[in-house]
């Protein structure tokens, strides 16, 4: 399997200033994401997951190590990823459809094709009624659907999703997981996903990488064994519950601290 993202011996250290001490955020992180693979990073808050995304996106330079996307060196270069941030981040002055079109044209798709794609897919996922509405009339869940659709339709090979559901209430979050799962399973893309929710990670991923507290390194890799297509029924599965407990124990803060 060829890998879409390859991260090799990545380290990141923020130089300190007079007020803040230097901080080592990532220490020797290596992993890869295969073609059509869903990989989840899970780790304590502040362990450097967003920083890792910013390096993959080219906004931040690693102190050491390499990143390659689709075989090409991607350190410090932008535009190689589709991105779904924690908050929907839709332009309030553009309609839902125009928001999707904007991201697609930035990714290099022609205007007309972008419009056709946006309209077609909004209809396909039952959001055609929102196409001409402005984002602020949409619920948080709806906004995140649009945000996900926008990333899914972007032509880049790698999708990076940074805690996309953490701002949603529990019920909406479950609906969104099921929705994303079905959409992704019928349109496989390479995904790097960040979450704090163990259930979410187990439900969605092919592999889970567990990060330690800062300076973060990968302390475990869990291959999620459940066959696809999956459904929320997994939540009651005995193996699911066992893995959940195992991950939970791994992420428990060190009692000696």
């Amino acid at each position: 399997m060829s890998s879409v993202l390859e991260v090799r011996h990545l380290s990141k250290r923020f130089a300190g200033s007079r007020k803040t001490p230097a901080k080592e955020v990532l220490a020797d992180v290596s992993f890869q994401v295969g073609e059509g693979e869903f990989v989840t990073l899970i780790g304590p808050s502040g362990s450097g997951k967003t920083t890792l995304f910013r390096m993959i996106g080219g906004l931040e330079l690693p102190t050491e190590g390499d990143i390659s996307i689709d075989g090409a060196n991607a350190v410090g270069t932008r535009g190689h990823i589709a991105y779904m941030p924690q908050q929907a981040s839709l332009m309030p002055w553009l309609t839902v459809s125009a928001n999707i079109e904007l991201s697609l044209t930035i990714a290099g798709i022609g205007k007309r094709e972008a419009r056709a794609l946006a309209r077609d897919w909004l209809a396909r996922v039952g959001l055609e009624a929102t196409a001409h509405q402005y984002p602020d009339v949409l619920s948080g869940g709806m906004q995140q659907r649009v945000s996900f659709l926008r990333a899914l339709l972007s032509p880049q090979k790698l999708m990076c999703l940074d805690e996309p559901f953490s701002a949603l209430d529990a019920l909406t979050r479950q609906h969104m997981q099921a929705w994303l799962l079905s959409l992704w399973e019928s349109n496989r893309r390479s995904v790097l996903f960040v979450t704090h929710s163990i259930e979410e990670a187990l439900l969605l991923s092919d592999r889970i990488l567990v990060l330690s507290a800062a300076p973060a390194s990968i302390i475990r890799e869990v291959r999620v064994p459940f066959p696809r297509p999956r459904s929320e029924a997994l939540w009651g599965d005995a193996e699911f519950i066992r893995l959940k407990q195992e991950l939970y124990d791994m992420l428990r803060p060190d009692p000696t601290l």
Partner: protein
Amino acid sequence: MGSKRARLLPPLIVTAAFLLLWQAAVWLFGTDAYILPSPSAIAKQAYDSAPQLAHHMWGTLRITLIGFGAGALLGFLIAALLHVIPWVKSGFYPLLVLSQNVPIMAIGPLLVLWFGFGMLPRVILIALVTFFPVAVAMMTGLSKSDGRLFEYMRMIGASPSRLFWRLELPGAMPHLFSGLKIAASYSVISAIYAEAIGSDSGLGYFILIAQHGFETVKVFAAIAVIVLLSLALFGVIALAERLFVRGGSPRGKEGSRS
């Protein structure tokens, strides 16, 4: 539509009450018309001098629009330039502020001296006064774009020009329009001033002549026309704002007392 009428009512009542009070005071104290004419006398004068006033109003309107247009465009370009090239901002911003500290009373006659009695010195004067609020408001708007949207756009690889046209500029539109509204009021006032120092037409010139003849009623009639002109310009800009600033921006985002 009912709510619109309800919004128009308070200012109308206040204005009417003010005019009535004025009328009553003039009548009660028997004030001479050359000191303070009554609103009814002003209205009658305005009616009698309507052709003259209309002629001068067109002159004023013309240079106001040209000067305002030039100033707004200049302000827009300066803001964009200063925003896009940071070192230009640090270098030129103090100069911009300084330009507003030169009294127009000093610069006005100089402009006439340099550029003659044509339209040019008047347009330059108006533009000089109006570009500033537009530039400052727009620069504030440009530098205040939403951090999350900015991060998102950079993550998906938006180029600096895309960032400007698709994020920073649309985000700055509400600021730009506040600047334009202030500039609109300034432009009318500075047009009047410019006409008083180097022109043979326009409401400023009309006022000057009326003052020399102690025709205070005529001065007030001209003031009334100027006020209406300012209101109209303001209204046109507010209308443009409603048309161009779409989606989300004002509605419900900021808190409101009512």
